[in-house]
């Protein structure tokens, strides 16, 4: 099968959906000729024109608010927020409006809207350009929150997100844009709200998110050399959450490690741990472990950043702790 990058996979999904449905359009800062800060939308303006690849003023609240408005009248906007850190500027629109307008209309309005953004550290971008904020969106009823970890998933999930009639927050990872993976030429979609088993195993379940899936896979390879068999579950959509795939795995392995790049307190890991404690406590043979960033702002400089962010070694250590 052909290999393309995560960036190209996202772009292909956008292109195919724009071709398929004229109501799909893109808006965001510098997404036109510039092709976006991470070049995801590069050249799409040539193919679809400046109206459907709409460069906007630097105003996140305006971007998301405008996208919501357009979605209320049947358009399918895909808004790009350059960094998830900047999406804090559009919380009001996302949390108070996108997530609630359908309910407030008595269940009548459709909001077919995607907010694409990217998160994560690893490039010395410092405290205001490196955060992982998915848990904030996961907390809000009315939103669907997706974090793809491979090019294949990114393309299939984004196509589904664009066809979805609810607001979707689609969170890419800046550290994965150049990563290559198998993506078929043929049309496919991946359903939202369904998890994926990224590796089968029998001893320990690792639930990982976004780029942490890549680290977990590497850790699993190393652990296999020590005869520890790790099963890796990638929920892909964190809201709604595919609880069954996690519970089933934990019932099989009896051990659970959760990995994410966001800091630990009140994070995605806490939700998974609570869910498993609630629904599969009797199956657990060891305490649940979470691997996450330290509870500090992301510092500038690689040495400090590496100290703060979870890595392969941390995952190995946590898995072994559940095997004691």
């Amino acid at each position, binding site marked *: 099968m052909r290999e393309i990058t995560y960036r190209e996979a996202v772009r292909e999904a956008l292109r195919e959906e724009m071709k398929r449905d004229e109501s799909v359009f893109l808006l965001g*800062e*510098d997404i*036109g*000729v*510039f092709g976006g*800060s991470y070049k995801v939308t590069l050249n799409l303006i040539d193919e679809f024109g400046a109206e459907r690849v709409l*460069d*906007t*003023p*630097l*105003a996140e*609240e*305006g971007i998301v608010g405008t996208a919501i408005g357009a979605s209320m009248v049947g358009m399918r906007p895909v808004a790009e927020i350059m960094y998830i*850190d*900047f999406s*804090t*500027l559009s919380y009001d629109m996302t949390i108070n409006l996108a997530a609630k307008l359908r309910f407030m209309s008595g269940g009548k309005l459709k909001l077919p809207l995607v907010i694409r953004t990217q998160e994560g550290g690893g490039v*010395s*971008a*410092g*405290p*205001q*350009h490196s955060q992982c904020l998915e848990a904030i969106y996961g907390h809000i009823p009315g939103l669907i929150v997706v974090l793809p970890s491979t090019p294949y998933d990114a393309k299939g999930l984004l196509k589904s997100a664009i066809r979805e009639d609810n607001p979707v927050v689609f969170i890419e990872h800046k550290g994965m844009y150049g990563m290559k993976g198998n993506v078929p030429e043929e049309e496919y979609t991946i359903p939202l709200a369904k998890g994926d088993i990224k590796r089968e195993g029998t001893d320990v379940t690792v639930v990982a998110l976004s780029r942490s899936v890549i680290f977990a896979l590497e850790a699993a390879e190393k652990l296999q050399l020590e005869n520890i068999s790790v099963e890796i579950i990638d929920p892909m959509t964190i809201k709604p959450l595919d609880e069954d795939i996690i519970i089933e795995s934990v019932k099989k392995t009896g051990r659970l490690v959760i990995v994410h790049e966001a*800091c*630990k*307190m009140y994070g995605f890991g806490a939700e998974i741990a609570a869910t498993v404690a609630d629904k599969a406590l009797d199956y657990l043979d060891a305490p649940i*472990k*979470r*691997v*996450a*960033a*330290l*509870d*500090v*702002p992301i*510092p*500038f*400089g*690689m*040495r*400090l950043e590496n*100290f*703060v962010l*979870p890595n392969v070694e*941390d995952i190995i*250590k*946590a898995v072994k*702790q559940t095997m004691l």
Partner: protein
Amino acid sequence: MKLNNSTIKDIYLMMKSCRAFEERAIAELRKGMPGFIHSSVGAEAIPCGISPFLNKEDYILTTHRGHSDIIARGANFKKVMAELYAKETGYCRGVSGSMHIAALDLNILGATGIVGSGIPLASGVALGSKLKKTDQVTVCYLGDGSTCTGAFHEGLTFAAAFDLPVLFVLVNNQYEESTHWTYWGGRLKNLAERANGYGIEGISVDGNDAIAVAEVASKIIPKIRKGKGPVLLEGVTYRIYGHHMGDPGVGYRTKEEIESWKAPDKDPIKRLLNYLLKNNLITEEEDKEIDVKLNDELDDSVQFALESKEVEPEAAFANSVYCGRDAFNLSKI
């Protein structure tokens, strides 16, 4: 107000310092210094024209593109370079980097990488000075793109509502990342017109004419200090490099356009040098000596940064995430 010659010459020296620092920082970045640089090359006349009229007690806040703003305010080459190199001897112990330098000993309250977010902060700083009944002025540097944000609107609304002693310095380098300001602001003659919406004074000057900037600054800063209310001062300039050094800066604008802004009649440093030469305020030899001296100082600053240590991770977060409390949950597992 007529500027005296020594002020004009000081402004020139300051502009050279800003330019030399930035060019060296870019060279170091290309040699492997970490992070990003959003270069302020080309816009030096604006902070250098303003800074001479500030008191030591006045405050400044700046942006991700703020190296010249802080150097014009007296920031130390070594401490800035060390910060860029993520070293403990930097202004923020190397945890903050190019985009977020604060130098509290110089009343440089910091820079922020979230466009526009410094604007309401500046109103708050000015409110503090007003409540404390000091005569401090706050200078808030902002870019053209930031005038699109809600923070700009709200920050100026507050400044106007409470007659705050704040000078909003709009460094219009014409490009918001890749987007020319007329793409969204084309109905305006200039961005100083935005001031009309708040009933405050808006002034637009040629931001590459250091003397013009300084003449305006020398008039309005004393007025602001006397409590006559905030002013929005736009300096029209040009961003010579790309959005950051990873952006070649072309595609959305032409090479010819960029070159035209480097010409002797456009570049702010060349323009002021011509003025100084014409008026016998400097000689070519003296100008070359300044370059040599700056080069030596920058050599020292790089050596200082390279020889400095990175902050120890354990120490980096003690008393820095919280004041008076250690960070907690310092375990990844």
